[in-house]
Each structure stands twice: as structure tokens, then as C-alpha cells.
């Protein structure tokens, strides 16, 4: 369903700021968690969850821009594809990168995303002008989300530990789908011609907080990370973001009513 008809989505916050916020916030959160867990203690692992929320906000913004070209039901498909790219790039980056793992993951996700974007546009002929950029952005934000939530779960992004404690236990599935839907859901949930950027972003942060809470639930059984703080901060962010979302719904909706009949014919004209 098209909303902008190819005109591009209206934005209050410029996309460059969001990209910078996503990359910088994401990597700072991940690295801060990595070092502070060693220095201070496992409960600092919540910082990586905050980093993942930065990545989620960026990803949701990229989905919002590409979706306004009328992709409709294709949005979840390209989102899942891009997150798959992010997952592959994450595993590659963490395996070869050591301490620089997240940065290498982000760079390789950007490269693979860009190549897939070119293939989609040139070979498959999808013909969305910003396809290359969007695939690059969603894949890169996907890598940040996956590393962020993994680090929030186990307190480190060390490849061996990620493989044993996140992938072999199957918790990667919840990272993939909760992180993925946090990126795909916000624009989808606010779909319509009167969609507003701030409302979509409030949804993204709310869904990101849910992903963070889930990472905290898993962290509660890992000794190297602490779940309590991650869950509590996640709940707080969820509450604030949901309140903000509801406030924006009240601002944007035609009418909010407890109950009532449909608008009359005169009202519709």
C-alpha cells in the first residue's frame, strides 16, 4: 500500500542524523557494555541493549523511507532479507575481528547489503530509487541489533561465547525475530497517509525496549551478564515510549472516542 506514491516520506529529523545516531549509539553501547562488564560487573550489559535500541530506531527509519515507495507486503520480505545479511555479516565479523568484531561486522553488512541492493534494483528490476541505500542501512542496523542484543544477553561479543551461549542455545532466534519486528513493525503499524515520523519512532523505541527486556530475560541465566537491570531499564523505556506513542496517537487521530457510531454521511463530506 503506497502512502507517498514515490514522493518519499516526510521527515522532521533528518536522515543523516538518524544514521549517525544509529551507528554511533549502537557501537558506543556495544563497546561500553563489553568493556564495563569486565571493569565494573555483569550488570553493565544493559548498555548493549541501549545500543541495540539505537540500531532499531535507525533500521525503522530506513524501512520507513523505503516503504514510502509503495513496497507494501514486500517490506517484511526485504527486512527479513536484510536482517539475514546482518546475521551473516555479524558472524563473519565476530569470527575474524576479535575486539574489532562489531566494526568489521558493520562494514561487511554494509558491503553485502549494498551488493544485494544493486542486484535487487538492476537484475530483478524492482526500481526503487533508494533501494541500494536502504538495503545497506537495514543490513547494517541489523548487524548492530544482533550484536547489541547478543552482548546484552551474555556480556561479551567474543565469537566463541556467542556461538555457544547464543546460537547453540537457540536464543539467536529471539534476537532475530524480536529485533527484526522492532524494525519492521513501526512503519507497518502506522501505515497510512497521515503517518508521522515521531509516532513511528515512538513505536520503534517501544518495540526496541521489548527486545531489550527479552535479552534481559535470557541474561538472567548467564553469569557473565545481569538480567535485572536490563529488564528494569527496558520496562522503563517501554513505559515512556508507549506513553509518548499514545500521546501522539491522540494528537494525530481524527477522533478518539470511548464508543460510538460511524461518522455520518455529512461528516464524511
Amino acid at each position: 500500500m503506497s502512502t507517498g506514491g514515490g514522493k518519499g516520506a516526510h521527515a522532521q529529523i533528518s536522515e543523516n542524523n538518524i544514521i549517525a545516531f544509529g551507528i554511533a549509539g549502537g557501537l558506543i553501547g556495544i563497546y561500553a557494555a563489553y568493556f564495563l562488564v569486565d571493569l565494573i560487573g555483569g550488570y553493565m550489559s544493559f548498555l548493549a541493549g541501549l545500543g541495540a535500541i539505537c540500531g532499531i530506531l535507525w533500521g525503522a527509519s530506513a524501512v520507513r523511507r523505503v516503504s514510502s515507495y509503495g513496497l507494501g507486503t514486500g517490506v517484511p520480505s526485504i527486512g527479513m532479507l536484510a536482517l539475514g545479511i546482518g546475521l551473516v555479516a555479524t558472524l563473519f565479523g565476530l569470527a575474524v575481528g576479535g575486539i574489532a568484531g562489531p566494526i568489521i561486522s558493520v562494514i561487511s553488512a554494509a558491503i553485502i547489503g549494498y551488493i544485494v541492493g544493486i542486484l535487487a534494483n538492476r537484475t530483478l528490476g524492482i526500481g526503487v530509487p533508494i533501494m541500494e541505500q536502504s538495503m545497506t542501512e537495514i543490513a547494517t542496523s541489523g548487524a548492530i541489533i544482533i550484536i547489541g542484543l547478543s552482548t546484552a544477553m551474555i556480556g561479551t561479543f567474543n565469537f566463541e561465547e556467542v556461538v555457544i551461549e547464543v546460537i547453540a542455545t537457540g536464543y539467536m532466534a529471539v534476537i532475530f525475530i524480536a529485533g527484526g519486528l522492532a524494525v519492521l513493525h513501526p512503519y507497518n503499524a502506522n501505515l497510512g497517509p497521515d503517518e508521522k515520523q515521531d509516532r513511528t519512532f515512538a513505536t520503534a523505541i517501544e518495540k526496541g525496549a521489548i527486545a531489550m527486556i527479552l535479552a534481559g530475560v535470557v541474561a538472567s541465566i548467564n553469569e557473565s551478564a545481569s538480567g535485572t537491570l536490563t529488564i528494569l531499564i527496558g520496562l522503563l523505556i517501554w513505559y515512556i515510549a508507549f506513553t509518548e506513542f499514545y500521546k501522539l496517537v491522540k494528537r494525530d487521530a481524527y477522533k478518539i472516542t470511548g464508543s460510538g457510531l460511524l461518522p455520518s454521511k455529512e461528516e464524511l463530506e
Partner: protein
Amino acid sequence: MEPLTGMGVMALIGAAATIAGASEDLESDVGSQSNPNSQVQLAPQMMYPHRIFNKAVSGEPPSNALMCTIGGTVASVLMSSGTSIVLALTIGAILAAAVHGTFSVSAHLGRSASQKRFKQPVYLDIIRSHVPVIMGYSFITTFCILVVSYLMITVLQHPFPLPLLAFIWGITVGAIGSSTGDVHYGAEREFQNVEFGSGLNAANSGNIVRKAESGLRNGIDNSWFCAKFGGPVTGIAFGMTVFLSGWITVVFDTTKGDALGWASVIAGAIIVLVLIIWNRNIEVAARNAYGPYKEDEKAEVAA
């Protein structure tokens, strides 16, 4: 494992899957997800505001994968800290239903608010009455999928961990619900006012039935209708998928030799073939019985 035990477990898995399929379809019908959603979303644009719950959580397979994976993750965390299995699966399903509730609320509020220029109001009583129903169905779906996954891991020795297996079954139940049951709502219920079999004429786009037997129609009315056919059919489709795909390796136990392994592959191929022929026959019989829509030529002459 005793073949008889295996068959018993398969029967239990099949029964749980049947319930999961039925509740999955009814959950999506209450919230107008997937196939019917495009018309519910379109209706206000065509000057037909409505009181039908409008939610989309990135498509049915991902949204079901989300709730099943959350259930699997929470259950797996609880089990590894020593909680009893039934309690772990139940708490996992409750949390999954709660998260699904938040996704439903944000989808309905957000989509209604984004249709301001078409004057689609947000009815709070629709949220209060529908979200508990949606959460109830999603609890049943998640719990049954977790039972299926847990039995597959512990009894049938499936190598995947619980969250991953729940993720895969979640995607599957969503895909089957989306392709099987939703058609009943999207094609029949939304367009009850046009002649059966007439298809969706472009002129009827968005002109969904908005009035009920009494009062204005909502999502719960739709699930009442779909519970008569769409839901059970989805349940049978999903139950059969789970049962038949597991049954062949239980009867022809692949661990007992390559010959039995090949026998299970052949049995699977035969089942697929029989189903294709059977489906084709149903389709041909239905077309012969009800036929394509024929325009009423006499009425045109009279006009």
C-alpha cells in the same frame, strides 16, 4: 523408542498442532490480519469508516514466529533454572501473549491515527474488547506450538533447541493460517453482500460489510463466522502438515537403516502426490457445482 510410543506422541503432537492452527486463524480474524487486512485498511479511504480491528504485525508468519519464539525463549530460560515444564511453557505462552497484545494495540492505534484525513475514528471500546481476545488466542497458539516443539525435542530427539524449533513452527503455523483460513474471512465474510463467487470487483474495493446482525460489525463478529469453517480448516491443515511430516519418520525409523530412510522419503512423496490429486479433484468438483460467476443477462435487458 517403541513404535507405539512414537505413534502416541505423534497423535498428541498432531492434536496440539490442530488446536494451534485453529486458534492462530481465529486470532488473525479478530484482528483482521493478513489477507483481509488490505480491504479493512482500504475501506476508510473509500469513505467506508468501520469498527473493525485493524492490525498488521508485519505479516502473519513473522508475528506468529515472534510470539512462539518469545514463548520458547522464556520457557527455555525457566526450564534451565529448574522450573517445572508445564509451568515454564505456560509462563512462556503468557508473556508471548502479552507482547503480542502490545503489538496489536500499537498496530490498531497507529493505523487508525494514520487515516485522519479519511475520518476514521479510534474506538477505545474496540481495543478493550478485542485485545484480550487476541491475547487469548495467541496464548493458545503459543502454548500448543511449545507443546509440539517440546515433545519433538524430548521424545523424538529433534536436535534443535526449543526457541529455534518454536520459531520454525511459528513461521509455519502463520504461513498456513495466512494461506488457508484467512481466505474464508477475506473473500467471504468481508463481501457477504455480493453474489457468491463473483470475485472482488474493483468497484467493490473497500466496500466491506460494516453492519452486523445487530449493530455495527466488529472483529469478534468476524471470528464467530470464521470459527465455523476457516479456523477448523486451518487447524486440520496445520495438524495434517505436522502429523504427516512426522509420521513417516516414526513409522519408517530412519535411525534403523538406510532402507527405512528411503522408505520414509517414498512414503512422503506418495502422501504429497495423493494430496495434490485430491485437491485438484475438490477444486474441479467445486467449480462444476458452483461455477464461475455468470452475469445476469436477463436483468440487464429488463433494465
